[in-house]
């Protein structure tokens, strides 16, 4: 089977190269047959890579440890869900996923645009298939997924315990598909540049792909942060780690792109800016893949020096230099059709929002690459920590939330100050009231957080007002009840109201970020059984230690009684899981304690805030028993050793030494993910195809056909 897999990959490489070559040849000779053939080759590539993925998944499901990748990332005891998803915890599997998703997305976009873009599409095909060939080449020559292991081992080493979590099942493919989907508008932008067809048609055809990419990246980021919050014992959701930043940067620049293309569609402006943004977004996506895979920056995720870092850097260089030269050579075709004629217009608000988003991405990029920069400048490798990122990104966040509210209120073209004043009046008044209420209500004085709350309130009221205006305007026109009128208005302009919903989500998300970071209480407690400690308004009592043995792990847990104002409100059960080590040099008993450990957080979660606890037992008192066990029972059968392990674990519960706890109160933290969910739903609402939208597209075709016929 490994041979079949390798053969499929080899065939894929040839097909991708053929598709790229045929597309370029067809474009240059204007021979449609070659173009059609290249498009079909893209479909064929989709089929071939699907086969490759299926071969690999089949091997995972049937525990075929003759596949090296299966032996290293799965085992017979791995649950089926994690067998299916273990593929992308490996480098070759991740790259195969990249290539596969690229082939599917390319097939989809070329199918959808098969009757349009006769000029642009072949060049876009060439770009996409060039990328495809690159990744397949990396797979074949750098990180082969179909390496045979002979003889096949009896058992695999299993999936890294930290990744055995539903969030981690979905997180990597979401990020990967986000990156891949951004390659579609990138490829069409390059096609448009090459053919000088720089009107908005490339944007219209790929806008939806950009929005899907944005949504998938957002989901990936949200899942990753939730995983960190629930599975890691430090209590945060974002650590400004290089690899986290690498996923955030393309999302930020992609957000800027989604906004500024509207300016080009409406006003014919910002053309250079738009092609630069999509090149930037895609380059940052490549940079993200490179940072994850190369280990140039110290990061908890960086997977050590690997074979694919160099080629990825070369690709990034080609993309950046090639695109820049192409844009410079086409500057004459990218002249704006209008000039910015008023500071009080939606396009200028969009411009400011764009500068903020790109500026934010830039400072994050600066901080992320700072170790390399400082090494180049001073010779010393120095890095900036989370404190730097928090300090420097906060002003951007505060201003951005303000603009999520202002943007929708200001019309295109030119708005008079009077009109602006009228729409701003209510939001501004209510925001001011909110600040007074917060200060009177005795909230701690954290100026930046309070300013953010004010701006977010402003934005939320402004957006609510937009929905209200839409509903009442439609009601005035067509009558009926207000909800029906609102529904009708929203459904008629999904893109606008989906966008506003996304704004509402982001404003809520940022409220959650500000509240949970500025008003958090955190305690590190060292408690013996029966002892209590406090965090915020809560009193925590360590009632007892529990032990739970499953075939794969030993879980030590704590029963923590929570009381507030003298009344018991809950019992939390944070735990720590110890997975056996596969290191053969560790003794048979010790290996159960020396392997990976993961935390199960104990949480009392609510809309007002979370009480978050993590537990770390002190197992050093077991060392003597474990050593003794290793000495006495090393020759015993595994079953008997298992009993010894269980006995040692049980003995620990009798009289456990004090354990460490971390307890945090995180006000409003859940709104980060609820806000994220709202934002993502808004984007999905905007992107969902409608019957009306299809009719409109068909009408456009009919009109174009009519024009061409009359001209002929």
């Amino acid at each position: 089977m490994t041979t079949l897999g390798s053969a499929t990959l080899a065939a894929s490489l040839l097909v991708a190269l053929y598709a790229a070559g045929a597309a370029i040849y067809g474009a240059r000779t204007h021979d449609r047959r070659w173009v059609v053939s290249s498009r079909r080759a893209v479909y064929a590539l989709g089929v071939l890579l699907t086969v490759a993925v299926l071969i690999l998944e089949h091997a995972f499901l049937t525990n075929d440890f003759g596949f090296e990748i299966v032996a290293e990332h799965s085992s017979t005891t791995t649950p089926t869900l994690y067998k299916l998803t273990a593929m992308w915890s490996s480098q070759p599997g991740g790259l195969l996923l990249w290539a596969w998703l690229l082939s599917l997305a390319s097939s989809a976009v070329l199918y959808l645009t098969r009757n349009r873009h006769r000029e642009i599409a072949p060049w876009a095909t060439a770009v996409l298939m060039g990328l495809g060939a690159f990744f397949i080449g990396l797979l074949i020559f750098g990180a082969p997924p179909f390496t045979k292991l002979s003889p096949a081992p009896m058992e695999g080493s299993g999936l890294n315990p930290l990744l055995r979590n539903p969030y981690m099942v979905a997180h990597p493919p979401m990020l990967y598909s986000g990156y891949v989907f951004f390659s579609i508008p990138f490829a069409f932008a390059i096609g448009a540049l090459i053919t000088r067809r720089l009107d908005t048609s490339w944007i219209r055809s790929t806008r939806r792909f950009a929005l899907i990419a944005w949504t998938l990246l957002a989901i990936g980021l949200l899942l990753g942060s939730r995983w960190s919050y629930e599975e890691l014992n430090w209590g945060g959701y974002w650590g400004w780690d290089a690899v986290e930043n690498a996923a955030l940067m393309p999302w930020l620049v992609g957000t800027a792109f989604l906004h500024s293309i509207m300016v080009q569609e409406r006003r014919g402006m910002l053309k250079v800016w738009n092609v630069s943004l999509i090149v930037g977004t895609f380059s940052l996506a490549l940079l993200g893949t490179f940072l994850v895979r190369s280990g140039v920056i110290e990061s908890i995720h960086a997977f050590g020096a690997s074979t694919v870092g160099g080629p990825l850097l070369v690709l990034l260089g080609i993309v950046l230099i090639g695109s820049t030269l192409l844009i410079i050579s086409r500057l004459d075709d990218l002249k704006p059709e209008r000039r910015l004629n008023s500071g009080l217009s939606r396009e200028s608000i969009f411009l400011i929002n764009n500068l903020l988003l790109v500026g934010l991405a830039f400072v994050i990029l600066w901080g992320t690459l700072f170790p390399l920069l400082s090494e180049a400048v001073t010779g010393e490798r120095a890095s900036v920590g989370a404190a730097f990122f928090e300090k420097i990104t906060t002003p951007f966040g505060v201003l951005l939330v303000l603009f999520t509210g202002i943007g929708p209120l200001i019309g295109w073209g030119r708005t008079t100050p009077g009109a602006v004043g009228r729409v701003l009046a209510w939001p501004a008044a209510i925001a001011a009231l909110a600040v007074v209420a917060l200060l009177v209500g005795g909230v701690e004085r954290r100026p930046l957080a309070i300013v953010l709350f004010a701006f977010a309130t402003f934005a939320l009221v402004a957006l609510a007002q937009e929905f209200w205006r839409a509903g009442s305007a439609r009601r005035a026109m067509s009558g009926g009840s207000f909800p029906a009128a609102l529904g009708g208005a929203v459904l008629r302009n999904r893109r606008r109201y989906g966008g506003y919903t996304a704004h509402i989500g982001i404003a809520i998300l940022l409220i959650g970020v500000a509240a949970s970071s500025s008003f958090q209480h955190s305690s590190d407690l060292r408690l013996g059984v029966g002892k209590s400690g406090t965090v915020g308004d809560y009193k925590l009592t360590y009632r007892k230690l529990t032990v739970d043995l499953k075939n794969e792990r030993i879980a030590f847990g704590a029963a923590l009684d929570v009381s507030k104002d003298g009344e018991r409100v809950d019992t939390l059960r944070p735990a720590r899981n110890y997975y056996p080590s596969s290191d053969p040099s560790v003794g048979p008993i010790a290996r159960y304690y020396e392997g990976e450990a993961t935390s199960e957080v104990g949480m009392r979660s609510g809309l007002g805030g979370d009480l978050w606890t993590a537990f770390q037992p002190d197992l050093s008192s077991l060392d003597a028993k474990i050593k003794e066990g290793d000495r006495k029972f090393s020759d015993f059968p595994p079953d008997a050793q298992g009993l010894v392990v269980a006995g040692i674990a049980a003995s620990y519960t009798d009289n456990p030494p004090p354990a460490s706890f971390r307890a945090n109160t995180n006000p409003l933290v859940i709104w980060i993910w609820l806000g994220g969910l709202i934002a993502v739903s808004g984007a999905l609402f905007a992107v969902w195809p409608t019957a009306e939208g299809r009719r409109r597209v068909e009408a456009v075709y009919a009109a174009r056909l009519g024009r061409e016929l009359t001209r002929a």
Partner: protein
Amino acid sequence: MDPARKRKVRLVVALSVAVLLAVGLVYTSFSASTEARQPSELLTANPGDTYDLTGKVVPDSIDHQGEELLFRVQDRDGDQSVPVTYTGTVPDPFRDGREVIVTGSMQDGTFAGQRDTLITKCPSKFTED
């Protein structure tokens, strides 16, 4: 003012703002940054200065004393090592032999780690540990 002149003024203002912001960024990042050092390079360290100590946890050196975690860190490719004291969250993957980064300063021959600065690299499944 004629439009061309107005645009020029606007451009100059925008560029000066951008330059100011850039200078601010460079200044903040250099003043907020900490140098990375391996144990062997700490010998030349200024006492009191803050560094990011990087290296591997020396096997069998991990010990708990009350709130404090004591361990030794050695060079990635060498055996020079330095004792470390640390309080705060210990990441899940923290183990003998793992690569760690901890921020702190030298005090009487011991590297005193700042609270909650300990980072452990995810054990790599892609390459040999």
